[in-house]
């Protein structure tokens, strides 16, 4: 690279050569030299032109701007700090919400060509469905999986995943105690379909999934290998005993792989062929209608989703017809004809909670975007005020030859510095907020939220956008000058009406957005309060909950299991201060068994019932009040008439206008579930969530069905700290090997079911408050500035006899006008926002007067207060000082 010195040298040579020539023509050396110089022209100009033609001049100027910018920021440390903090909060909040959004909705699985993966259905259901398919289908049986695998023409691989993550207890290597192990049952083709290679050893193959019960092997999750085995290199061959079977670990997955289900990271992957061994209570490898699997497939290259879908649905219809059998009635065939499979792209994996979190995240994302917008408006106002007070400086610079472009560039550099500082400071803000979000939301712990390239690019793009947003207009404004006028004016006096209008517009906009956010938050809070006050139908106080893993202790669904369960219930109920204890298939918010029923003499109703298998005294333990008939009792056992207690809705739906007591109904075709006699009716309750619409429900005694149900409920009015150890001891007395999970309270479980509603309500309130705070800082800043600017005017007014109150009112009036405009616009925005939110969040009511009125009142108070301080200051002006001002 050529240096400027080198160029200077060349020019000197040129002048010398020219002088030589002139001397040869007879001029004296001095004359020749002068003439040569004259003929070359302006040497310095040539050098400058050369200098500026070089590329790195930019860098030099940039460094210059940087130094100057830093100096300017340092000169106003207070306002610079406010600007940087404002930006840090705005950018940080956006980055945090986006990080979560990225993980939940956008991030691809770390597998080979994720775009080729498709999911059968949407994986919104979990558990098992055992009716014939009759609509958009999501769960499939093992024979169905094999059928698809064999008969499709569009996939290179098809894999099956158990829709339920089995949490069981097992013994690892030669450990003494049983410990919690989560197992995901998958087909042998699982890893191959995803294209995931083992980090150590091998993954599963189709051959590992050939014969039921014959493949006791497991692939360990890297995270589990690290956590449980301390990354022992001798992991291969490690034995894990679950129930009566010992599994040998054949491989470890790579570290970045957490499974195909986002937020669900199992400890072990075991072939589906071992379903009965891992889950003795819930299996059905050989049953066409034990539909409990998600299917995931990899499209062959060049096969579109539409082609794949066409092929899959042909196969699916044939399958469903075959399941219905040759003797199927026309009605059955008609309902089967509505069955179809919707293939969905699965590059981002499957997720149960994606649906729960998507709405809240989208709403939060929009809210923080608006907060950032308000922050930008604030900083823009700050810069406007600052550039107005620097108008003279800018005018001087421009009049001595600085180009407008150059000045704009320099001003933007200052904005860029603010933005950069804000972005740097936003990283800890984002991290803290993300932790908070994760701890507040229903997102599972296994969600791996690590900032990735996408998040980084997002934050960077956001920063640049922010800088342009708040920096451009002030820079353009500052450089559009009437030079002579600006130079004539004294320092500090300026700002034409245009600048003022812009600043005021920004303030009104801030007020409008803040009001909309506050009103939205009000609606969400109101909704949350409504939900908290929902009548659950059971008494959630004084109830303890735990899980007892009988499968892990090696039980099967037989009389030994039933005896154990009854004895546990008896022993615990006999403890002092216990009002009731019982097992249950599901308690609250933990999913459940939903199925249709058949009532003799009635046409088949397409109406699902929530079934629960419970201990004899479960209903008393939950305090579900009896309306009719009797509760279940210990006398309802294997030898007596099969009975059920139903709820009011079920009574009304299936036995209208009659007493249901004594009537019978059946579930499906299994012999165990025929002619169930209704013996009692209990009050309606919520079963799966507070937002559900009223479900028909029925309860059956486990003594009549020998079912492995693991939830255990105890009602006690004594101090839990004292009762829990006693309960543990009582259970251990029955069987010391039984693994008992940690205890929670029913109140906690109910509270957790509202986690996402609470998250959105609380965060939007916090962001709404932040918005209001920013807006008030904005109002304060603009009004104080305008008062400083008008000191002279106030002095004149007061000298001419205006009272202090008049001046104060005049200033306050100005603020109020702005706020009123903002509120009017904000009200409209709030109504629109509410409608949008209601369409995203299920169960959100319409805007109520309180949720709108309160924010309006709050905004008015905040605005008046932040306008009042500068207004008061205006009245403290001493006319004699003010007139001499400047």
């Amino acid at each position, binding site marked *: 690279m050529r240096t400027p010195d080198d160029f200077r*040298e060349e020019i000197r*040579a*040129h002048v010398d050569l020219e002088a030589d020539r002139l001397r040869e023509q007879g001029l004296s050396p001095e004359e020749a030299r002068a003439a040569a110089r*004259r*003929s*070359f*022209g302006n040497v310095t100009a*040539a050098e400058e*032109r050369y200098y500026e*033609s070089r590329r790195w001049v930019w860098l030099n100027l940039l460094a210059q701007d940087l130094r100057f910018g830093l100096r300017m920021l340092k000169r106003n440390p207070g306002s610079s700090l406010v600007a940087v903090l404002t930006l840090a909060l705005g950018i940080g909040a956006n980055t945090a919400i986006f990080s979560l959004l990225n993980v939940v909705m956008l991030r691809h699985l770390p597998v080979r060509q994720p775009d080729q993966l498709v999911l059968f259905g949407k994986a919104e259901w979990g558990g098992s469905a055992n009716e014939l398919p009759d609509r958009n289908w999501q769960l499939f049986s093992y024979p169905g999986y094999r059928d698809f695998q064999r008969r499709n023409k569009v996939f290179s691989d098809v894999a099956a995943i158990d829709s339920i993550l089995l949490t069981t207890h097992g013994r690892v290597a030669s450990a003494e105690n049983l410990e919690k192990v989560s197992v995901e049952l998958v087909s042998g083709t699982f890893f191959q379909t995803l294209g995931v290679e083992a980090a150590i050893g091998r993954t599963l193959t189709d051959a590992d999934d050939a014969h039921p019960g014959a493949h006791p092997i497991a692939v360990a999750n890297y995270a589990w290998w690290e956590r449980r085995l301390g990354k022992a290199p001798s992991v291969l061959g490690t034995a894990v005993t679950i129930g009566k079977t010992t599994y040998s670990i054949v491989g470890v997955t790579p570290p970045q792989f957490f499974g195909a289900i986002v937020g669900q990271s199992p400890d072990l992957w075991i072939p589906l062929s071992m379903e009965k061994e891992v889950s003795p209570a819930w299996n059905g490898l050989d049953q066409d209608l034990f539909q409990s699997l998600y299917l995931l497939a990899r499209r062959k290259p060049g096969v579109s989703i539409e082609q794949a879908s066409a092929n899959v649905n042909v196969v699916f219809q044939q399958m469903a017809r075959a399941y219905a059998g040759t003797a199927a009635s026309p009605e059955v065939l008609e309902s089967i004809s509505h069955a179809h499979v919707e293939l969905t792209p699965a590059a981002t994996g499957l997720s149960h909670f994606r649906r729960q979190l998507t709405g809240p995240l989208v709403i939060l994302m929009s809210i923080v975007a608006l907060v950032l917008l308000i922050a930008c408006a604030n900083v823009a106002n700050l810069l406007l005020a600052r550039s107005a007070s620097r108008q003279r400086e800018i005018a001087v610079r421009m009049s001595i030859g600085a180009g407008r472009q150059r000045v704009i560039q320099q001003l933007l550099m200052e904005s860029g510095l603010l933005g950069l500082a804000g972005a740097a400071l936003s990283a800890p803000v984002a991290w803290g907020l993300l932790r908070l979000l994760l701890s507040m939301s229903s997102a599972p712990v296994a969600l791996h939220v690590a900032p990735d390239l996408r998040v980084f690019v997002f934050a960077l793009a956001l920063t640049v956008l922010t800088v342009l947003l708040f920096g451009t207009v002030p820079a353009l404004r500052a450089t559009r000058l009437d030079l002579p006028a600006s130079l004539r004016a004294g320092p500090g006096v300026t700002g034409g009406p245009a600048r003022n209008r812009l600043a005021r517009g920004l303030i009104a906009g801030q007020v409008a957005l803040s009001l909309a956010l506050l009103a939205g938050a009000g609606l969400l809070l109101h909704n949350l309060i409504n939900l908290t006050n929902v009548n659950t139908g059971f008494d959630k106080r004084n109830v303890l909950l735990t899980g007892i893993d009988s499968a892990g202790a090696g039980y099967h669904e037989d009389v030994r299991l039933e005896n154990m369960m009854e004895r546990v219930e008896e022993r615990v109920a006999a403890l002092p201060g216990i009002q009731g204890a019982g097992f249950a298939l599901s308690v609250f918010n933990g999913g459940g068994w939903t199925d249709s029923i058949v009532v003799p003499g009635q046409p088949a109703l397409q109406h699902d019932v929530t079934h629960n298998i419970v201990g004899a005294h479960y209903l008393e333990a939950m305090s579900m009040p009896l309306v009719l008939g009797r509760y279940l009792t210990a006398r309802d056992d294997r030898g007596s008439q099969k009975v059920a207690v139903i709820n009011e809705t079920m009574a009304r739906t299936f036995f209208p206008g009659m007493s249901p007591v004594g009537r019978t109904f059946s579930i499906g075709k299994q012999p165990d579930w025929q002619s169930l006699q209704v013996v009692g009716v209990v009050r309606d309750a919520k079963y799966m969530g507070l937002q559900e619409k009223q479900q028909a429900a029925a309860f059956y005694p486990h003594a009549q069905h020998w079912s492995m149900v693991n939830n255990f409920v105890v009602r006690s009015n004594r101090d839990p700290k004292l009762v829990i150890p006693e309960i543990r001891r009582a259970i251990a007395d029955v069987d010391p090997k039984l693994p008992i999970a940690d205890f929670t309270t029913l109140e906690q479980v109910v509270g957790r079911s509202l986690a996402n509603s609470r998250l959105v309500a609380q965060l939007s309130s916090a962001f709404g408050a932040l918005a209001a705070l920013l807006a008030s800082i904005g109002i304060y800043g603009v009004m104080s500035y305008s008062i400083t600017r008008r000191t002279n005017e106030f002095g004149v007014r007061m000298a001419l006899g205006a009272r202090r109150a008049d001046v104060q009112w005049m200033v306050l009036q100005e603020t109020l006008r702005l706020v009123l405009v903002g509120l009017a616009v904000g009200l409209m925005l709030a109504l629109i926002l509410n409608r949008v939110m209601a369409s995203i969040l299920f169960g959100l009511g319409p805007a109520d007067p309180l949720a709108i009125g309160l924010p309006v009142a709050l905004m008015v108070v905040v605005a008046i207060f932040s306008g009042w301080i500068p207004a008061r200051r205006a009245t403290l002006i001493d006319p004699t000082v003010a007139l001499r001002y400047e």
Partner: protein
Amino acid sequence: MSTQKPERLELLQGTLDLLILRTLIFGPEHGQGIARAIQQTSGNELLVEHGALYPALQRLEARGWIGAEWGTSTNNRKARFYTLTKAGRKQLVEETTQWRRLAVAIGRVLGPESEES
């Protein structure tokens, strides 16, 4: 300076590059030499503005049409000598052809010389 010799022709935009390349066809030359050569061969009709010459040299060098090296002039002065590169030679041929076509075309439009003067 231009006030002293107002009758001199202004260089058309872009033609300076062509003239520099043409001058260098006779061998390496320094900036002052190039300026003088253009002036002399044009019969003193063209005056090269030095403010334009050096940026032009800079530009041509950046494009790789000419090379540069410090050397010694005939009267023993250190000077930066420019040489035509292969690419520059090609460029010269191209631009010359283009220029000739342009000149002919403009000549046709303007019509025979006698009528004008």
